[in-house]
């Protein structure tokens, strides 16, 4: 073995060791978080927290509220995001306007969520005179839109151009090609993007703090303050008494499990496509 080969081997080993160490550090923290969560949280999870509301030391209204907030956010954010993404890829392409929108969307993606919350407070809470569920959902929707826009944009760009031309060559209009061929071809990627966007906002606290705030009672009325798991965890965790803190841990476990479940579903869907 000559000197060059030895140096390469050494470098190889050094990089292998460094990246392994980095991966181990990441994993250690992840396991630390998960085990702490499970140890502290699992004990506090009883059947009764699913059947009682926060006012009776349960989480029912919070779980339902969180899903409604994120669900309504999806109803607003997903269609807008999809339409904008379709516009960018199928109509705007590289026009100056499309490039501007694309950049704007990227900037929005990294906007601090608390800023979005304060902004919505300014336009949907202060003017109507109180916290309300709609404001919370709109804030979450604003966080979803750039994610859906960017996944839609990139998933549509993976659809081969020949497929669009083949549709046109059979006498389809551009809109028909998009609706009946392109979206179908990109379907799994689009669903993945939507699920990821949902998973991203379902665990958010900051955009809800000044918008939907919180509610101890069960409600489906989004004109009122609206219950959510994340804001409650934040509040309960600051209480000094053990029952409150236990409830916060239980909420954290449930929230983590929920997000994990969505992520795993997404992976499963994506994997299924690859094996097909």
């Amino acid at each position, binding site marked *: 073995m000559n000197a060059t080969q030895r140096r390469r081997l050494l470098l190889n080993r050094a990089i292998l060791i460094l990246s392994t160490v980095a991966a181990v550090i990441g994993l250690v923290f992840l396991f630390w978080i998960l085990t702490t969560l499970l140890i502290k949280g699992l004990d506090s999870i009883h059947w009764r927290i699913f059947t009682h509301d926060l006012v009776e030391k349960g989480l029912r209204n919070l779980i339902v509220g969180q899903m409604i907030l994120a669900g309504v956010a999806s109803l607003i954010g997903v269609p807008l995001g999809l339409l904008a993404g379709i516009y960018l890829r199928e109509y705007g392409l590289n026009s100056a306007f499309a490039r501007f929108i694309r950049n704007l969307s990227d900037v929005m993606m990294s906007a601090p969520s608390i800023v979005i919350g304060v902004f919505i407070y300014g336009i949907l809470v202060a003017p109507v005179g109180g916290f309300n569920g709609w404001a919370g959902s709109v804030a979450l929707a604003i966080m979803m839109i750039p994610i859906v826009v960017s996944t839609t944009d990139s998933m549509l760009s993976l659809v081969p151009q*020949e*497929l669009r031309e083949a549709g046109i*060559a*059979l*006498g*389809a209009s551009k809109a028909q090609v998009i609706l009946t061929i392109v979206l179908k071809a990109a379907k799994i990627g689009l669903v993945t993007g939507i699920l990821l966007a949902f998973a991203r906002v379902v665990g958010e606290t900051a955009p809800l703090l000044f918008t939907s705030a919180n509610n101890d009672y069960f409600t489906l009325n989004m004109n009122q303050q609206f219950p959510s798991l994340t804001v409650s965890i934040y509040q309960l965790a600051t209480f000094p008494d053990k029952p409150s803190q236990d409830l916060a841990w239980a909420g954290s476990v449930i929230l983590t499990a929920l997000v994990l479940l969505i992520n795993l579903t997404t992976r499963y869907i994506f994997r299924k496509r690859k094996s097909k």
Partner: protein
Amino acid sequence: MNLAMETKEFYFTYAGAEAPTLKGIDMPIYANKVTALIGPSGCGKSTLLRSWNRIHDVYPGNRYEGEILLYDKEGNEENILSYSKEDELIRLRQRVGMIFQKPTPFPMSIYDNIAYGLRLAGIKNRSELDGRVEKALKGAAIWNEVKDRLKQSAMGLSGGQQQRLCIARAVALKPELLLFDEPTSALDPISTGAIEELVTELKEEVTIAIVTHNMQQASRVSDYTAFMYLGDLIEFGKTEKIFVNPKEKLTEEYITGRFG
């Protein structure tokens, strides 16, 4: 002999390009014959073929000049370059079909692939659709392979089968002219043979223009051959004539493989 199409003094300029890619093309396409377009890479074969159904219009800013006349069975002509409304272009594409280099099955069932263009053309009746789908698949010599799996995804077919499916899909619309852009360059020899045989059978019903890089293929399937070079049409004539006794020195050099 009847004309199916006639290209006159035709210039084509891509969006943003300074000089035209096609420079004054004049050539006929005869009805119920196979016309091959040959020439070295980049000479403009695809550009010309794609002008004949105005598929270039998918992208903005391209410029056509000259005339491309499309004849119907009665000999009435229309200049397809005068079309500007979307429904005129849709009608054009129903009359002039296209098969691409890579097979382009849609992500749907085999049946729906064939029915796609038919439904767009307004055929909704179930039994009529069934009949037309079967006829098209038989016409493209793929019926026996797929008749038991019409409801399955077309993505599961082999490359050669997918290409014949695409031909069936185009044939289903009963076009007058079918344009093929190197339809076998992504296929194995057996699938290639099947497609070539198909092209020869199809000309009973439909006029065919085919771009190919394969000289044997051009001489096997075509009745007429057009040789292009750097955006010009150098020579057009009967295939035997072009291959055995070309007028132009350039044609001879290309066919004998001295360049290209």
